[in-house]
Structure formats: structure tokens, C-alpha cells
């Protein structure tokens, strides 16, 4: 649709030339979703400028990643067993189940160890995030003092 494309380009030019910015705060600047793991972000005052919003969005991504790591830190030694082969499939599945049973004593402790490490890693990252938040808040405070 050439009409729509042309007018969109005209609109873009109008917005750029006029330096028109959105004066409505972004969702992330106004609402502070607060899952328990991000308690340190409560009460953080956000600047309304674009860089502040971008920083908060990047920070939100970090929090999301850490929360996700925590939620999925558990590594299961149990995996569903299947075979796609039509004829040999049931035999293959049976053999795999036997092998799984025989190696369980060896594999399960490794999976548990890994889960433990994953959980510690996620916690360490969360602590680092809190530290970064505290330092950022301190920097903001010092900047405001300067001005």
C-alpha cells in the first residue's frame, strides 16, 4: 500500500524534524513489579529521560535472567525416553530404560551437584545485582549532590 508507506515516511520526518518526544512515562518507569527476589529495587527513583528508561529496561532484563536462572537451576537426572523408530522403537526404549536404571546411581549425584552449583551461581549473580543497584543509587545520590 503505497499511500500508507508514503504517509508513514512523512510522519517519521515530521516527528524527527519537530523533535517530538513522548512525554508519557514508559511502563517500566512507573510500575515497579516486585517479585521477592528483586526486593532491592523497591523505592528506586527513576529518571524520566531516555537513558534512565533504557538503563531500567536493561536492568529489568538482568533481573529477569537471574530470576529465570533461579527457577530453572534444578537439573533433572530423569529424562523421558523415546524412540522414533516404528518397528525397533519399543525394544530400543526398553533397553534405554534398563541402562537408565543401571546408571542411576552414578548420574543422579552428578545432576544434584550441578543443580546445587546452578543455584549458588544464580544466588551469586543476584547478590552482585543487589550490589550494582546499591552502587548505582550511590552514584545517583552523589551526582545530585554535585548539582
Amino acid at each position: 500500500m503505497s499511500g500508507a508507506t508514503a504517509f508513514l515516511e512523512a510522519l517519521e520526518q515530521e516527528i524527527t524534524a519537530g523533535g517530538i518526544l513522548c512525554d508519557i512515562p514508559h511502563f517500566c518507569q512507573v510500575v515497579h513489579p516486585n517479585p521477592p527476589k528483586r526486593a532491592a529495587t523497591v523505592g528506586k527513583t527513576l529518571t524520566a529521560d531516555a537513558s534512565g528508561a533504557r538503563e531500567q529496561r536493561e536492568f529489568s532484563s538482568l533481573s529477569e535472567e537471574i530470576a529465570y536462572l533461579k527457577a530453572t537451576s534444578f537439573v533433572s537426572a530423569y529424562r523421558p525416553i523415546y524412540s522414533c523408530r516404528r518397528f525397533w522403537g519399543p525394544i530400543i526404549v526398553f533397553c534405554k530404560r534398563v541402562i537408565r536404571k543401571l546408571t542411576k546411581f552414578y548420574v543422579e549425584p552428578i545432576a544434584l551437584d550441578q543443580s546445587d552449583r546452578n543455584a549458588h551461581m544464580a544466588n551469586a549473580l543476584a547478590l552482585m545485582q543487589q550490589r550494582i543497584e546499591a552502587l548505582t543509587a550511590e552514584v545517583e545520590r552523589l551526582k545530585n549532590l554535585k548539582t
Partner: protein
Amino acid sequence: MQIIQVLVTLQKGDAIGNNALLLADMLRKEGYQVRTHAYHIGRDLAFGTDEIYPIEGMVTPGKGDLVLYHMCEETPLNELLRVWSCKKIAIYHNVTPPKFFAWLDIDVAAKQQRSLREIASLRNTFDRVVADSSFNKEDLVQMGYVSKRIDVLPILIDFPSYQQAPDSRILRQLQDGYTNVLFVGRIAPNKKQEDVIRAFAWYKKHLNPNARLILIGSAFSEEYLGYLRQYIEKIDVKDVIFPGHISFPEILGYYKSASVFLSMSEHEGFCVPLVEAMLFDVPIVAFDSTAISSTLGGSGILLKRKDPVLAAKAIEQVMRDQTLRAEMIEGQRQRLRDFDVTALGNRFLKIVEEVC
């Protein structure tokens, strides 16, 4: 040969559920014996009628049967599908990526991740796969599915059902000279209702104070809906309506009263509401993400940049410029022809015949 359709949730008003019911009807008309099984069946779909049954107690499909599987989440069905020896066609409706939920509900995010992993592990299970959009097909190819075994076929939509009378009360309430900006879709983080609200707020503040925003859809979670209401209060924007769970005639009433359809969604597997907007001649302004552009197929207005000012100005132009509006509506009507149920149904039948 029996055709056994399996899915997790079957209910009317849900795009996947409606698609399943329409497919079953269409296949029955062609003379096939069709049963539909689901874990959760909507209360308005009585057990046993139209051959709708729960999954529990389902007889294992025989070698000569065909299973149609609506694939969109983790489920014990995925394990069953691997061991069934019948022919199988998967219809992939997409899985919303976990990143959209991680900040809100970690359990849901983890479930989405598991869903993606399970679907990827089924890559060699199906004889054919039908994807609702080229975006969905690309998703599957990324997961290791063989491209030449995937057909792109838009979701079937029961257009005749939209001919029923809309709710007159809604028409009376909304046809008051206000510009009605509409978005239809589950109130969920990937749909980005907050960005629709932001664009609308700028539009109402700077361009047209006589505007109203209607956000139709059931809430993914009360918490998220609460955050949206909090946002609306904090930015002090009026005339934003969440109708909540409403009847089909009421939905028709909202579409008939809509001046423009605005989408800022960041993830869609197909987006049925876009087609519904086309049906009601509601001009569409949408942010270009995932399957939006393929569903629009060149119609509507596609925003390459997510800028509330751009979206607001686009709405203003659509409302002011009648030539542009007419051009858009005509383009959308032409695009609507590509979703003709008979033509799409025949393509699906051909796939079923090729597999069987």
C-alpha cells in the same frame, strides 16, 4: 480410518479451540470419522456431542488412524505422541517465549521454556506439520524441524458466526462521536497492552481528547492486570476500558463501534483479532513484530518502530484522511479473501490425503 484430534484445551472463543471445532466439522463433511479429545473441555461443549471427549480413557490410536495434534505447550500428550504408531499431523500455534513472563511469574516462564524444549524434541515425530504462519514455520525450523515437511496454513476462522447481531447496548454506548481505539487479545505481557495505553495516552493528550481505548481480552493474571491499572492511574489517562470476560455479541458490538485497531504486541503466532478487524472494516495500525506482517499481508499500517508518538500520529491520520482510510479498508478486504475457509479447508484436506 479414524481421525483423532487432540489438544490440551478445547473451548469456544479461543482461537485454537475454534480452529479445532471448524476442522472437525470440515473433515466430517468430507466423510471422515472424527473424534476430538482434550484435557480441558469448555463448559459449553457437552461431553459426547460432536464427538468431543476427555483425553483420560482415550483408546490408543491404531496404525491406520490419523492424529491431528494442536501443538502449543508442554503436556503429557507429547510423550504419548512419540509412542503412538499411527500417522500424525501437528498444527503448531507457537509458544510465547519465556522472557515475556520471567519478570511476572517465574513458574510460567519455566513452563514456557519446558514447552519449547518438548516441542523441539518432537521434531522427528510427525508425518507433516502445519504452521499458522511463516513466522511459526521459521520457529520450527530453528528447532530442527525439516522445512519441506512444514506447510504454512492460516488458522481457520468461522466467518459466518460473525454475522450474528451485535449487542445493541454496546453500540449505543460507544457510537457517541468518540474515536474508539480497540485492541483485542489476551491481557498478557507479550501483547504489550501497556504500550497501547501509552500511545493512546499521547494521542488523547495531544491530538484528540475525545478518544476512548478499549482493551478486550481475559487477563493472563490478575497481577498483570493490576499493574496495567496502576500504570493507567499513574499516567492519569482517562477513558480506558477493560470489558473483561464478555459475550460474543458484545465483542461484535465493540468491533462494529471501533474507529481503529491498534496493536503493539511483541509476539504473535498468527493474531486472529487482526483478521476480525479486517472483517469489520476497522483500519489496523500495528507494530511490526513476529507474525503480524505476514497476517496483514501488506494491508493495514505497519509501524517499523515502536514509538507511541508515531502510533498516535498514524491513528490521527487514519481518522482525518478519508482517502487513506478507504484505501486501507479496501486493502484489508482484499487480504481477507486469502483467509477464505473453503480454500484453506481444501488445502488442509489435501495435506490429510497426502499423509494418509
